[in-house]
């Protein structure tokens, strides 16, 4: 008796994974190419950057906030990284006299340049109490405009191969580095959320920030950490994206934050704060990824694709809300 009850609970807790499995089965029948390792890896590679961004944005949504800046931070860090990583013998370099910098230094500089925006987000939200939507909208505009100014909206091409390896290498002959980075970020996010005091604090702040404060949690400090982490993820995403695509352009990362928010939301992250599970979010990322990949394989009309994505997002959230309502 107790066993069957557990099973039911397990099902309702993991309903999003069931949706994912159904999608996978449906796609396997619909397209013979879908279930090949090549295609699955390609799909994972495509979703990795947005996946990494999602690992950051989940914290913001969990704390009952939102982060609109990641896509712009991607463009900005991509530009910074690309400008420092151009082939030393390329004649049309952005910085003519730039020495051949080690890749790790380029990554660190770009990470710092991007993460600063998260710090700014966090400080604004925590100490001026302006809504996260507004603060991060502001930084979004500033970061993208900075990318435009920095590059004069010209693409920065011809990156050196040691830098491109970062996003294009394959580990053990099959695991693309960009997917490995994604897995690492999932592990870090999962660990922080479940195993650290910071994670528990974010849950508490999202559930009820007044109660969290009474319980002795330093809400401001934690919020700063949340948004700094979000920008850190976005910066890494930008570096990987540019190293993979071999040139930066200012349109990079456009609307990525919306895809990340959609993935987090489909994955069961509640916008009223306090509810999120990394496993669900991974399912959310994969569902949207498979949807995109599936529509591509099946040759779905490009006008129709957006609408289908919209329907999936709405349906997923409606189901999820019903589940939460039943619980309470």
């Amino acid at each position, binding site marked *: 008796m107790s066993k069957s009850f557990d099973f039911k609970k397990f099902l309702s807790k993991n309903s999003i994974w069931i949706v994912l499995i159904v999608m996978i089965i449906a796609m396997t029948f619909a397209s013979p*190419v879908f279930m*090949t390792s*090549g*295609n699955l890896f*390609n*799909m994972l*590679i*495509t979703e990795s950057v947005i996946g990494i961004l999602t690992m950051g944005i989940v914290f913001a949504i969990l704390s009952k906030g939102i982060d609109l800046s990641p896509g712009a931070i991607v463009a900005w860090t991509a530009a910074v990284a690309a400008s420092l990583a151009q082939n030393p013998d390329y004649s*049309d370099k952005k910085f003519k006299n730039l020495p051949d910098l080690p890749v790790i230094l380029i990554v660190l500089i770009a990470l710092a340049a991007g993460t600063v925006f998260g710090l*700014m987000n966090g*400080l*604004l939200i925590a*100490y*001026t109490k302006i809504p996260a939507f507004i603060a991060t909208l*502001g930084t979004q505009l*500033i970061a993208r*405009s*900075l990318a*435009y*100014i920095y590059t*004069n*909206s*010209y*693409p920065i*091409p*011809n990156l050196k191969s040691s830098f491109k390896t970062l996003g*294009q290498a394959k580990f053990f002959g099959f695991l693309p580095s960009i997917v490995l980075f994604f897995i690492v970020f999932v592990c870090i996010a999962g660990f922080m959320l479940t195993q650290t005091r910071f994670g528990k604090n974010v849950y508490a702040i999202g559930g009820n920030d007044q109660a969290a404060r009474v319980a002795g949690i330093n809400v401001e400090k934690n919020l700063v950490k949340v948004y700094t982490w979000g920008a850190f993820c976005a910066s890494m995403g930008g570096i990987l*994206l540019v190293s*993979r*695509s*071999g*040139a930066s*352009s*200012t*349109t*990079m990362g*456009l609307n990525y934050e919306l895809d990340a928010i959609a993935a987090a939301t489909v994955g069961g992250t509640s916008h009223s704060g306090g509810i999120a599970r990394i496993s669900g979010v991974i399912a959310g990322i994969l569902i949207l990824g498979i949807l995109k*990949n599936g529509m*591509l*394989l099946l*040759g779905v009309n*490009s*006008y129709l694709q957006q609408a289908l994505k919209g329907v999936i997002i709405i349906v997923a959230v409606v189901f999820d809300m019903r589940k939460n309502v039943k619980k309470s």
Partner: protein
Amino acid sequence: MKNIKKFFVLGLSLIMVSTFAFGCGQKDNTDTKEDTKKEETTDDTTQTKEDDATGDKAKAGGKILFTMSSRDQFLTSMETAATKYADENGVELVVMDSEDDITKQLSHIQTAVTDDYDAIICNLVNTDNSAEIISSAGDLPVVFVNRSPGEANLKADKYVYVGSNESDSGKFQAEYLAKYFKDQGKTEINAVLLQGVLGLENVIKRTDSVKKGLEEAGIKVNYVFEDTAKWDRATAQEMFIQFLGTGKQYDAVICNNDEMALGVIEAMEMQGVDPTKVPVVGIDATAVGCEAIQAGKMAFSVYQSAAGQGEGAVKAAQAIVGGESISTIEGANDDKTIVWIPFEPVDKSNVEKYMK
């Protein structure tokens, strides 16, 4: 007390943000500076006008407001060329950026009317708003540049359009591909087509004209994959990698711009496909695109002269302000409503001409 502290914090962060924004924005301030500079010169011109009381506008070159839709690589090159030409020819040109906002663009038009400008050069934010722009401009002549207001809104030597015929770009792509495949004796091919942002006029024209061109040349094309990569290199790259995974055969890749073509080439190289074996064609002939053509990776592109359009727009405005007709300008049509700046086909044989 608490409130004071709050305000203090708020004020401080505001200052922080604004210094940050302005501090970083210094480079971008060039045009604001230019505006102020121009304003000073305005005062001078009005003074000289009063002095010799002739009010010979044509001689002074006229005072023209240039409202841009936004700034990207292409539009910035256009702006630079327009400003340069204006400086050299004694035209007073004030450039304003609408940041893709139609309301801002309309306010620029109103500024032109109230501030006694002689003409407006308008790079439309939205091609559907041209009637609105014309009615706001009152008596001022309007030169539309790069984005066409639609022929119905044009009027000889009053509301004119300077731009390139988007339909030509696709036609050039089709001509190149038709020759390429006819030389091989092929009349039926499989092709991949990557489009820019759906719904834009130039996307529709570029796509339709290449399709029509190939059809008219007697090449039967089977589009094995057709989708939008939103002008974006990274998006095109990921899409094409996934497409390669399907194992479908393709003989050519047609892209609405160079950035997407470069993404396709990057994808091919990553998956170990030789990009020189299949013609990948783009449009725009950007600097990076030209390098790829020279390296033999990209087969063909079409050059749209940003500088030609910027210069042409100022020339047209100057002619109209001076009471002349635009028909004196090369590329003008018989109706005196359009100045065509021709597209130019670019392949390995002539690519050097388009590189800096």
